[in-house]
């Protein structure tokens, strides 16, 4: 490149301008629906986000479902039988879960289930070495963008299965930390509820313990837990950067990590913006759901 060409590029992208006017240009084009071009994705930022978001969403929803199931089950169990072995185990699990580096957990899982046991594939959204599958991916109809649903709608059971087994390890990795937080939340709020008068009343009128726990106690203990679930899901929707990188999952998280390393500024800006929007929306939804679950909030 000649110096003249470099100067022309600098002029074109306003690189000689001070930061605040560069920011103004960015805001200006944002309001015209233009977020710039991501050199990492070789796509405009908007297209990159819409194209990669469904895979992130898929991963987020499956791992949140896993986390909710395990977290609520174990949290309730350990509160009902406080200081039992189940309680000790799930408390240890939740401590390890918040302390473990998520990318390391992913690598260890890969080592155990791929390298040693050969049960699960190493990484990627599907078996990329299988050219037939990649061809089918190009030619099939993408109704929703969610590969699990699309493959089923296309009647491609083999692809569906392949995608599903590729999903297991990243989903478990992501779910681990969220499960840990949920166990802790659920346990403490369940302990609080179990000491309440209405639980005593329910027991006093002779209801079976199962009904007391499941209907009277857990429903109320779920209220604060719902907040955590919503925020966790919102956080995961913003791209699980580390997990997606470990498993080379083609979502916005992996894209943003690549963009950050490659100093792909429009991509970083766009990604940060979209993450903030998702997180704020998740907060809003949580507030609304909270008012629905807890009538006291509505009245007050």
């Amino acid at each position, binding site marked *: 490149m000649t110096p003249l060409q470099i100067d022309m590029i600098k002029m074109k992208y306003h690189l000689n301008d001070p930061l605040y006017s560069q920011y103004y240009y960015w805001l200006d084009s944002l309001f015209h629906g233009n977020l710039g071009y991501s050199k990492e994705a070789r796509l405009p930022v908007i297209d990159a986000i819409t194209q990669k978001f469904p895979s992130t969403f898929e991963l987020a929803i499956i791992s949140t479902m896993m986390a909710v199931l395990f977290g609520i089950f174990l949290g309730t169990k350990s509160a009902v039988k406080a200081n039992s072995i189940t309680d000790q185990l799930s408390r240890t699990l939740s401590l390890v879960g918040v302390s473990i580096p998520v*990318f390391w957990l992913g690598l260890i899982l890969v080592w155990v289930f791929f390298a040693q046991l050969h049960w699960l594939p190493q990484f990627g959204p599907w078996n990329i070495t299988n050219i037939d599958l990649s061809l089918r991916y190009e030619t099939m109809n993408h109704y929703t963008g969610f590969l699990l649903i699309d493959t089923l709608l296309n009647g491609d059971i083999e692809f569906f299965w392949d995608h599903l087994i590729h999903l297991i390890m990243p989903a478990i990795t992501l779910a681990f930390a969220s499960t840990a937080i949920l166990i802790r939340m659920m346990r403490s709020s369940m302990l609080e509820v179990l000491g309440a008068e209405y639980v005593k009343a329910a027991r006093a009128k002779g209801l079976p313990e199962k009904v007391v726990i499941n209907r009277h106690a857990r429903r109320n203990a779920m209220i604060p837990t719902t907040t955590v679930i919503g925020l966790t899901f919102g956080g995961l929707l913003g791209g699980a950067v580390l997990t997606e990188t470990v498993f080379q999952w083609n979502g916005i998280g992996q894209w943003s990590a690549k963009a950050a390393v490659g100093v792909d500024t429009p991509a970083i800006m766009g990604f940060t913006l979209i993450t903030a929007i998702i997180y704020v929306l998740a907060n809003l939804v949580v507030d609304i759901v909270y008012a629905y679950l807890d009538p006291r909030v509505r009245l007050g």
Partner: protein
Amino acid sequence: MKAEKSGKPAEDEASGSKPVRDSLPDSNADADKKVKTKIKKSRLWLALMPRLKELKFDAYLMSKSATSIAGIVLLIILVIIAAFPSFFATPADPSHPEMMPWNPLLWEPRPPGVDGFILGSGLAGADIYYGVIWGARISMAFAIEVVGISVIIGTLLGLLAGYKGGVLDEIVMRVTDVFLSIPSLVLIMAIAAVLGRNLESTKFALIMVWWSGYTRIIRGQVLSIRENTYIVAAKASGSSEGSIMMRHILPNSWAPVVVQATMDMGTVVLVMAGLSYLGLGAEPGTAEWGQMIYAGQDRFITGSWWMVFFPGMAILVFVLAFNLIGDGLRDVLDPKMRR
């Protein structure tokens, strides 16, 4: 984490009230008497005595929980390693002890115990044991700096915002809202990407984001504490605003910040390791655990498990130690739990 931070404002507003003395073991009371007779009651001691008593009582409560003890033992080991790393692993290049020693003649990774590598070696003879030991120093220094500076900034801003209120409060709290409305890893990643690939810029990016959590906690505490009668009394007796904030409000509002900061010591290291793993933190070849995992991950799958396993275990132990202590502290410092 964020939800926890914001979810419990003013939970233990009564932390200023002194614990029940009857439950103190006799030895402590005796020791207190001795100290009392030894030292003439200077102003400083009058101020320090109740706080020392309080600390002693906290330590006594902590010593009753097995998990706290486990955390403290782990922490002591980590602190010793972080303070004297040369004692455990002598640096090959004393001017750059943070870089792992390497030897191109030993290109292939060696398993643990072979060729004098206690925990094995990475590519080009990078000593994993050396990395694990010096990584503790790097992580500890990093965490202390980030959490320390963030706590100072966050506490001061929170105190001012909560006590002064008005426009200042609005400005400070809206700025913290900005930082708390984006998942921290994303924002830190974006800042670190702009600042360049090294630990210094990671540190800077983390501090920029991290103070906001403490500001929110402290402000919530201050709002409930400043309505107490003892604050009104202090005002009536003519104390200055600064003295009220530092001597009456701060000592009664720091407990949740201490708990949060303890746990954040671990979280900060998790974030640092994560960024290094992505290629945004420590430079290649640094004895930093996340970077070591990044360097080892390709060979890890093909059999050199030690390259990834040991640095990861080091992170896990480090973070676990602080989480265990944080859990214990939360129970001890919460006045509802200690009666």
